[in-house]
């Protein structure tokens, strides 16, 4: 391959477990680095995306900043991949979706025992939470999904190597997991 593919990654409303799983491809990372270079990612600490071939996003969309970052990725990445349960289904953060957001904040910051002087945080640096947590595909077009909580290093390796080889990625029994 003459030119290396550029990959960007980020975690929105996720726990970085999927990024840990990316590291779990272990020494194959060296083989991967023969084919790709990393742009914006916790691995490089680059803060903004430049035009990339593949964007990999962990976590769902739970606040205003997540929306901006997701749009930055969609604008810059030819192929956008949602990785993990939270990015694909909303996951754990979305377990609040059947509850009223104001009621949640009130209970957690105001009415729980021991919160006599409590207040709902409203520092301008804090991104505003969204009313509901959304899977990525509800906000922008997502091209591929790697399920799992997290997907195993082997699943990520299979998926990425299929994709880079120009094949439709398939996981198959043992690699496809929702948990």
């Amino acid at each position, binding site marked *: 391959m003459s030119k290396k593919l550029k990959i960007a990654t980020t975690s929105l409303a996720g726990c970085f477990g999927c990024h840990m799983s990316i590291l779990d491809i272990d020494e194959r990372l060296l083989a991967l680095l023969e084919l790709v270079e990393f742009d914006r990612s916790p691995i490089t600490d680059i803060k903004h995306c430049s035009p990339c071939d593949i964007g990999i996003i962990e976590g769902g969309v739970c606040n205003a900043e997540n929306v901006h970052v997701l749009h930055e990725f969609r604008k810059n990445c030819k192929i956008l991949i*949602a990785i993990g*349960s939270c990015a*694909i*289904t*909303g*996951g*754990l953060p*979305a*377990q609040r*979706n*059947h509850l009223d957001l104001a009621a949640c904040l009130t209970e957690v910051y105001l009415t729980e025992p021991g919160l006599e002087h409590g207040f709902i945080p409203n520092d301008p640096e804090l991104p505003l939470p969204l009313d*509901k947590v959304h*899977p990525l*595909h*509800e906000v922008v077009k*997502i091209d*591929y*999904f*790697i*399920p799992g*909580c997290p997907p195993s290093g082997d699943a990520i390796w299979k998926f990425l190597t299929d994709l880079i080889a120009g094949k439709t990625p*398939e*996981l*198959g*029994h*043992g690699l*496809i*997991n*929702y*948990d």
Partner: protein
Amino acid sequence: MSDTFMLDGVNVPFEAGQTVMQASLAAGHYIPHLCYHPEFKPHGSCKLCTVKVNGRTMASCTMPAEKDLNVESDIDEMNDLRRTLVQMLFAEGNHFCPSCEKSGNCVLQALGYDLEVHTAGFRHMFPDRPLDFTHPDILLDFNRCILCELCVHASSEVDGKDVFAFSGRGIDKHLIVNAVSGLLKDTDIALTDKAMQVCPVGVILQKRVGFSTPIGKRRYDISPISAQALKDAPRTGSKP
């Protein structure tokens, strides 16, 4: 010499009174299915087992086997339909597999794996469905109910208790508990009931046994549902 029909180009023998599903499974041919259970009368509600019979789409669990039928099951058109049905079920309920005790033993999840469903695709509905944890031994998590009706039939026809029923119509249709209070603690359900064994997803759960089987050793970790269903199915010659 019994009569046969054609399934994906293979001759499948059948006995009078068998459905396409029964004859196929008995002969060792898998047709994906979800609400079909070999011990209960099929009611064809989930449509996962839809096949093409002489060019028309039919539920194979209710379709009587007939001589010389041409049945197409493992074709892109049917598998795409099945994938969409699984996706809609995932989007309609709250199926959060990472926290579900049934994960690894769940028929819906295993079908998703087998059909390579990577996303629900649709907008998730995130319905509000409170749990019923009133019974000392049994938990009901309605978030995962797919309305297969198996528990309703098992409780009524095998256990003779009528613990479960459906209420509402259309998108409002939901599983209820047959008690004046609506609570499981006010029924005579027992751990030994058939209704405890038939839930394909994680609605009816025995308390204090969750996650006892480690990941990697659960039912569908060991073999995909397409292989497992054939292991479970009554073979040709044996009484169902």
